[in-house]
C-alpha cells in the first residue's frame, strides 16, 4: 500500500465512522411512525451515504400480515406496480451480503436487475430471515466497500429495531382500542337485561298488578338474570383460562350425549329465530376423554354463534364426524359468513367483539374464543371455514378419540325429578340486606322457615335459640368472613346437626376448596339457580327425614 492509498483508506474510514454516527440520529425520525414509514426513511437515508441505484425492502409490517415491499430507484420511490416485476426478478438472487458469492453465483457477472446488471447484496432486517430483508444494488465497481457494508448493516439493524418498536406500538394502540370497544360493549350488554328487570320491579309495585302479570314478568326477569349470569360466567372463564386456572373433570364421554345436552340447552334460542336444526349423528358411540360440562359449553357456544349470525329461518347442521383417531363436532349454518381476512381473528378475545358490534344481538362475542381454548385444553382444535360473506360458516371442533370401549363410557347423569321438600329451618347470613331478605322470602315461598341476619355475630348469637337445619352464608361479611363464621358455627356448642351452604360471588375452584375446608357442605355461586338451591334443600330434607 503506497502513501496515497493509505491516506485514502484512512479518509474512507473516517467518513465511514462519521456516516455511522449520522445514522444514529435516524431513529429520532421514527417516533410515532408506522413500520412502513420507518423502513422508507431508512432507505432514503442510506442513499445519502452509499451510492445506490436501487433498494428493495420486503418485510412483514405487522405480525401475521403478508410481506410488504417497496422499491426506490435512483433516489425516488418506484411505481408500486413495479414490485411484482422486481420480486420475480429477485426470486433467484442469492440472499447474501457477500458480493463475491453473489457474483460467483452469476458466473462472474453482476446480477441482472430490471434496471440493468448491478452489484447486489441482501441484508436481513433483524437477526433472522423472518423479519424481512433489504436488497441494495449499485453500479459502483467496488460496491460494497467495507465502509458501505458497515453503513448498510447499521441502517438495516436500526430499521429492524424501529420496525419492531412500531409493531409493538401498533399492538398497544390496537389493544387499547379493542379494550375500550369491549368495555363499551360490556356496558351495553349488562344494561340491556336491566331494563326489563327494572320495569318488572316497577310493575310489581304498581297498584292493580295481577297474579298473571307477576308470573309473566317474573319469568322475564328470571330469563334476563340467566342471561346476565352467562355473561359474567363467560368473563370469569376468560380470566380463568388466561390464568390457566381451569381444571377439567375428565371422564370417558360419548359425544352424542354431549351433543344432546347442548341441543337441549340451545333449543330455545334456535326456535326463537325459527331456525331448522339438522342432526347428523353416527349410530355407534364416539368416545372421548373430556369434561362433560366444558364440552357441552363448547357446542352450546358454537350453536349460539350459528344462531346469532344466521338470519331468521336459517338452517343449522350439527354433525359428528368420527375417524379412527379423532372425533369432530361440526356446526354449519346458512348465515352471513365470514370474510377471509377475519377467519384468523375471530378466535381472539377482543377481535370477536369488533365483529359483534355490527349486530344488536351480538353478546360479548367471547364464545368462540372460549370454545377454542376449551377445545385446546382437551387436546383438540377448533377451526372455522367460510366461503365468504353471504355463504355461511362451518366450525369444527376435533378431539382425540379415546381408546376406551364405547360401552365403558358411563351414561351421563340425568337430572333427577325433585322430591317433595319437607320444611327446613334456614338461617340466612348476608350483609347485603336486599339479597338476604329476598333469599329469605324465596325460602319461605318454598315452604321453609327462614331467619335472616346481616352480621356474622348476630348469627353466632341467635344460632342456638333458632337451631337451624341449614346455614346459608355469604362469604364477604363484615368483621369475620364466611369461612371463619362457618368454623365458629361448627365449634359452637349446643347446636343440633346442621348443614352449611356457601352462597357467594367468589366462584373459582380455589374458593370452593376454601369453603369445603372451612366446613361448608355445599358451595353455590351467586346468582344461584333456584332449581339448584331447591335440589340441595330437597336432599338435605330427605336425609333429615331418614335420620328421624
Amino acid at each position: 500500500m503506497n502513501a496515497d492509498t493509505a491516506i485514502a483508506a484512512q479518509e474512507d474510514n473516517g467518513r465511514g465512522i462519521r456516516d455511522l454516527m449520522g445514522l444514529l440520529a435516524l431513529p429520532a425520525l421514527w417516533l410515532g411512525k408506522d413500520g412502513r414509514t420507518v423502513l422508507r426513511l431508512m432507505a432514503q437515508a442510506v442513499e445519502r451515504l452509499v451510492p445506490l441505484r436501487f433498494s428493495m425492502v420486503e418485510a412483514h409490517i405487522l405480525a401475521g400480515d403478508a410481506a410488504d415491499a417497496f422499491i426506490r430507484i435512483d433516489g425516488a420511490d418506484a411505481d408500486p406496480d413495479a414490485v411484482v416485476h422486481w420480486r420475480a426478478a429477485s426470486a433467484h438472487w442469492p440472499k447474501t451480503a457477500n458480493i463475491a458469492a453473489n457474483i460467483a453465483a452469476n458466473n462472474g457477472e453482476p446480477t441482472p436487475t430490471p434496471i440493468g446488471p448491478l452489484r447486489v447484496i441482501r441484508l436481513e432486517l433483524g437477526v433472522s430471515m423472518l423479519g424481512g430483508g433489504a436488497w441494495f444494488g449499485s453500479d459502483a465497481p467496488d460496491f460494497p466497500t467495507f465502509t458501505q457494508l458497515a453503513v448498510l448493516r447499521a441502517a438495516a439493524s436500526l430499521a429492524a429495531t424501529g420496525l419492531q418498536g412500531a409493531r409493538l406500538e401498533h399492538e398497544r394502540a390496537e389493544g387499547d382500542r379493542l379494550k375500550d370497544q369491549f368495555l363499551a360493549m360490556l356496558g351495553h350488554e349488562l344494561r340491556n337485561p336491566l331494563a326489563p328487570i327494572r320495569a318488572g320491579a316497577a310493575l310489581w309495585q304498581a297498584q292493580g298488578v295481577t297474579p298473571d302479570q307477576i308470573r309473566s314478568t317474573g319469568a322475564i326477569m328470571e330469563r334476563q338474570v340467566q342471561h346476565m349470569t352467562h355473561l359474567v360466567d363467560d368473563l370469569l372463564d376468560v380470566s380463568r383460562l388466561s390464568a390457566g386456572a381451569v381444571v377439567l373433570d375428565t371422564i370417558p364421554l360419548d359425544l352424542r350425549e354431549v351433543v344432546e345436552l347442548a341441543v337441549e340447552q340451545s333449543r330455545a334460542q334456535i326456535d326463537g329465530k325459527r331456525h331448522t336444526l339438522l342432526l347428523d349423528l353416527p349410530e355407534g358411540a364416539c368416545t372421548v376423554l373430556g369434561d362433560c360440562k366444558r364440552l357441552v359449553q363448547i357446542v352450546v357456544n358454537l350453536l349460539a354463534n350459528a344462531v346469532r349470525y344466521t338470519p331468521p329461518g336459517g338452517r343449522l347442521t350439527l354433525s359428528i364426524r368420527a375417524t379412527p383417531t379423532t372425533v369432530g363436532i361440526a356446526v354449519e349454518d346458512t348465515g352471513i359468513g365470514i370474510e377471509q381476512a377475519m377467519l384468523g381473528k375471530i378466535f381472539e378475545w377482543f377481535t370477536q367483539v369488533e365483529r359483534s358490534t355490527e349486530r344488536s344481538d351480538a353478546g360479548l362475542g367471547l364464545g368462540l374464543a372460549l370454545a377454542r381454548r376449551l377445545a385446546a385444553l382437551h387436546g383438540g382444535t377448533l377451526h372455522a371455514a367460510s366461503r365468504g360473506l353471504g355463504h355461511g360458516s362451518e366450525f369444527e371442533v376435533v378431539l382425540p378419540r379415546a381408546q376406551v370401549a364405547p360401552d365403558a363410557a358411563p351414561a351421563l347423569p340425568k337430572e333427577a325429578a325433585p322430591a317433595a321438600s319437607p320444611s327446613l329451618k334456614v338461617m340466612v347470613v348476608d350483609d347485603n340486606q336486599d339479597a338476604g331478605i329476598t333469599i329469605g322470602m324465596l325460602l319461605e315461598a318454598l315452604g321453609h322457615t327462614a331467619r335472616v341476619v346481616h352480621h356474622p355475630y348476630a348469627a353466632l348469637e341467635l344460632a342456638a335459640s333458632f337451631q337451624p337445619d341449614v346455614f346459608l352464608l355469604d362469604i364477604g361479611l363484615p368483621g369475620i368472613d364466611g369461612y371463619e363464621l362457618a368454623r365458629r358455627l361448627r365449634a359452637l356448642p349446643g347446636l343440633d346437626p346442621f348443614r352449611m351452604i356457601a352462597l357467594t360471588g367468589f366462584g373459582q375452584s380455589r374458593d370452593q376448596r376454601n369453603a369445603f375446608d372451612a366446613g361448608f357442605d355445599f358451595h353455590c355461586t351467586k346468582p344461584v339457580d333456584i332449581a339448584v338451591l331447591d335440589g340441595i334443600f330437597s336432599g338435605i330434607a330427605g336425609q333429615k327425614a331418614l335420620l328421624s
Partner: protein
Amino acid sequence: MNRLSLAGTELNYFHVCAFFDSRDEEYAVLSPFFKEAVDQGEKNLHIVNPEHSADHRQRLGQAGIDVPHCESCGQLEVLEWQQAYLDETGSFSKDKMLAAVDHLTGAGRDAGFERVRIMGDMGWVFNDIPGAADILEYEAEVNDVLARNRQPAVCVYDIAKLSGAMMMDLLRTHPLTLVGGVVQENPFYTPPREMLEELRARKQA
C-alpha cells in the same frame, strides 16, 4: 462574555439544527434559551411562520418573557418568513439571506446588544418555495458567517416533515444537533467546503 446555553448545554459552536416532534416540545426546549438572552440583556431575533406569529408571542409570554416590553426596546424582534427568508415574490434567495444574516449578526447588529440569538422556523422549506432547493447550500455556507460573527442560530425543523435523506443532509450541515431535547456535537457534520462540493456534484449528476 455572557453564558450561551441551550437545553442545559454550553454552546461552543453557533449553528444548531433542532428537530422537534411538536410545538409543545419545541417551546419547552427553546424557551429557556430565549429567556436566558432576555435576562442577560441580549437580543432574540425570531423568524416564524406567519400563521404562528400570535401563538409564538403567547408562548414566549408563558415562558416568562415580557413580550411587549422586549419588542418595544428591541430585545425581541419577531419577523415572519416573508420578512427574512422569502422575498416579495415569495422566493428564497440563498445569497440574499446569507448577506442578511451576516449583516444582522455582524456590522448591522443593533448597538447595545452584546449578542443576537437567531431562531428560524424552517417549515417554509417544505412549502414548494422557489429557490428552496438551495437550502442545503445555505445551511452549509451560513456556518462560516455565524462562526465569523460568533452569533448563535437555531434552525428548527419539524420531524414529521423530514425524509430520511433530508435529515442526513441537514445533519451534515450543522455542527450541533438538538434531537429529543438533547444538544450534541455532531460527529456527522461535514465541513462546508466538502459539503458544497458534494451538493454541486449531485446537481451535475
